[in-house]
């Protein structure tokens, strides 16, 4: 009897002890993971990349490149911006960045008065350097430190060269573009027009496509109506490519037309692989991101003073349809 009682109690003790130890272990080992603290005296430099087109793959790549470079430089880095070219939101972000006294702003250039106002006056008053990336705003308007991105004038020339090669030296070209052209689009247009000057056999027509899908569709209709002999379309804004092509294919075959555009939108690679676009100018978004952060840091560390205000050109190349984008 006595042994039985002791045995039962002891085994109970052992079982409970085992579970208690397990539980105690669990309690002791489950440390709460708080975010690690930062020493207040060591402030990292902060750089913000602001764009209007957070949603496009192009800008995602720019962001990735910049983030990688920022990590290498061990600085604080964030990507801000608006979706779908929301001008108001974009400007607000820039203003917030300036008020927040970040160490540097890398921004998608925006050729508007408000932007120039911000860049010229506010940024200067806070002493914050601005670098435009991908889309430039002329230095005399924005007082930007430098520009990192493609040479759009050269891109326009390159694309036109490709068109001439494909189409020959005579034909009718429709250029579709926003009435309110970005500085970069203007440069592309200039590049193309300069290239065309030597070829009197080619007639180019510029049609304003507006900024929305509907207006782009209307513009495409107009182009087909007014210029039935058109041979090629060049879309300054690739985001309108899908709508325009839908319009065209709703009326006639798409194949006979030469379609060209510049890659800074979402559809480029899909349309290329589908073979609907004949060629696009491909830019190097990641390189832009990396380079912009690098240049900003060089400026902040006084390594390169002053920065080349003409800008630092990144690689462009022409990619023909059915070629895979890398």
């Amino acid at each position: 009897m006595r042994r039985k009682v002791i045995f039962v109690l002891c085994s109970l003790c052992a079982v409970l002890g085992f579970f208690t130890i397990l539980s105690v272990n669990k309690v002791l080992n489950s440390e709460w993971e708080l975010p690690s603290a930062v020493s207040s005296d060591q402030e990292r430099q902060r750089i913000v990349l602001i764009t209007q087109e957070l949603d496009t793959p192009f800008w995602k790549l720019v962001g990735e490149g910049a983030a990688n470079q920022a990590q290498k430089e061990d600085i604080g880095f964030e990507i801000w911006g608006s979706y779908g070219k929301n001008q108001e939101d974009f400007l607000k972000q820039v203003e917030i960045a300036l008020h927040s006294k970040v160490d540097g702003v890398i921004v998608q250039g925006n050729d508007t008065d408000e932007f120039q106002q911000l860049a010229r006056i506010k940024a200067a008053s806070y002493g914050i350097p601005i670098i435009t990336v991908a889309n430039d705003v002329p230095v005399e308007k924005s007082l930007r430190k430098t520009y990192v991105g493609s040479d759009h004038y050269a891109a326009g020339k390159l694309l036109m060269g490709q068109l001439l090669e494909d189409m020959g030296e005579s034909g009718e070209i429709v250029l579709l573009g926003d009435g309110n052209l970005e500085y970069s689009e203007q440069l592309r247009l200039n590049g193309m027009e300069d290239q065309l000057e030597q070829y009197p056999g080619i007639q180019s027509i510029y049609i304003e496509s507006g900024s929305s899908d509907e207006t782009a569709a209307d513009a495409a209709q107009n182009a087909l109506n007014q210029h039935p002999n058109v041979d090629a379309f060049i879309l300054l804004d690739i985001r309108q490519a899908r709508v325009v092509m839908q319009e065209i294919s709703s009326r006639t075959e798409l194949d006979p037309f030469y379609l060209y555009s510049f890659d800074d939108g979402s559809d480029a690679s899909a349309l290329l692989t589908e073979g609907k676009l004949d060629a696009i100018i491909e830019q190097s978004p990641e390189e832009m991101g990396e380079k912009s952060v690098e240049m900003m840091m060089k400026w902040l560390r006084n390594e390169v003073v002053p920065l080349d205000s003409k800008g630092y050109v990144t690689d462009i190349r022409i990619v023909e349809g059915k070629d895979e984008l890398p």
Partner: protein
Amino acid sequence: MNTIQKKIWMLAGIVIVMMFAIWLALTFYNQKMQDQYNDILQRYLQMNEVTTSSQQTVTNLNDHLSNPTARSATTLASSQQSLQDAQSSLLELRNAENEFSLTNYSNMIESFTETVERSVAFSEQGENDTAASEFTEANRMSVYISEMTLSIFNSELRTYERFYRDIIRQSQELNTMGILLLSLTSVLLLLFTYLFSLSITKPVHQLTKAANELAKGRFDQPIRVNSNDEISFLAKTFDHMRVNINKLILEIQQKAQVESELQESQLLLQQSQMRHLQSQINPHFLFNTLNTLSKKAYLDGAEDTSDLLVSVAGLLRYNLKRLDHTVTLEEEAHVLTQYMDIQKARFSDRLTFHIDLDPSTLVYQMPSLTLQPLIENAVIHGIEPKEDEGEIWFRIKDEGHYIRIEIEDNGQGMDGDKIEQLLKGGITPQEGQATGIGFANVAKRLQLFYGRDNVVEIESLPHVGTKIILKLPKVMEVESYV
């Protein structure tokens, strides 16, 4: 020694320590959790403080611009001060995940403050338009600050959600642990209490059993109690008492035995004295007559007869006087030789007596009239019934620490039963013996004299002979032994 009191104290101590430890641990963890909750809540409150005071500053600035008085200036300054306080406390809230946005936030507040100050400065210089535009700017920034507060709230919530879950999980685990600990403690307590009660009741039980044994009169079983407290002390005392009682009983028994032995020997003495008296019918007359007869025989030329008579007289005298005295072995041997002279005269050639004495032993003392009855027995039982020659050997040897006396005959011998009977005194001496002292009497006297039992041995085989062996300790001088 562990006392029972100590055991009880220990048990209580263990319980208290266990409870205290559990309480301490739970309180500690609770406190830790509460602190964490507090910290987190504090963060939100601090950020909220920024929004509130920035809005307050805007309102005050507006009041001040529209109606600049000393009072409005003070209010504005105080709201700005509270904003700055809130801002400086923000730096403590920074961590790896919100460093960027918090720095922005802090700088934004700084910019806001600067703008407010500019606005006031312009207003003081009378440039009201500029002041108004700065005010608009400040107002916009205040909105930005509110928005930023919200977005930081959001990210904080994201950051701390995981943490909250951890805390909740932890508190659940703590609950489980509490229940487990409680049950473990209870079971442990049960075990301890059981063992403790056993350690008290078991020895008591053993003690009770031992007491029962004693009550039944069994004093020879030692009392054993497996314990080391007061009860063991009690048991030891009890055992000591048992041993003492046992000793007393043994002593009483021994005393009784000694008394009975004494009575027996007194009885023997009286008996022999009776015989002594009976045979005392004018022994001096008999003794003198024998001497006269001896002289007469000598004068008549019968020298043998004369010698014989001297021997008889000596024997008679020895018999009369020496029963209650010790004598030397030499005297005893001398009487023996006289007795054998008489017997030789009686049996002439049929009896051959061999004697072999170690002279060094003759000085030792022994009770008188011990050897003569034995040799008489040898003659009566060894020689008399035999028709042919009988032989008797008498030897005294020194065996170191004792003296060995052998009396051997080659008579008819005895079987085992008879030896036993003889030793117990079952055979009474026959009539017509010289002293009338039986074998048992001799044996008894020797035992009493030397105070030991194994003095007399008998070796005998029927039709071969009997050998009586006495092993006597060496005793030099004893005055009297009765």
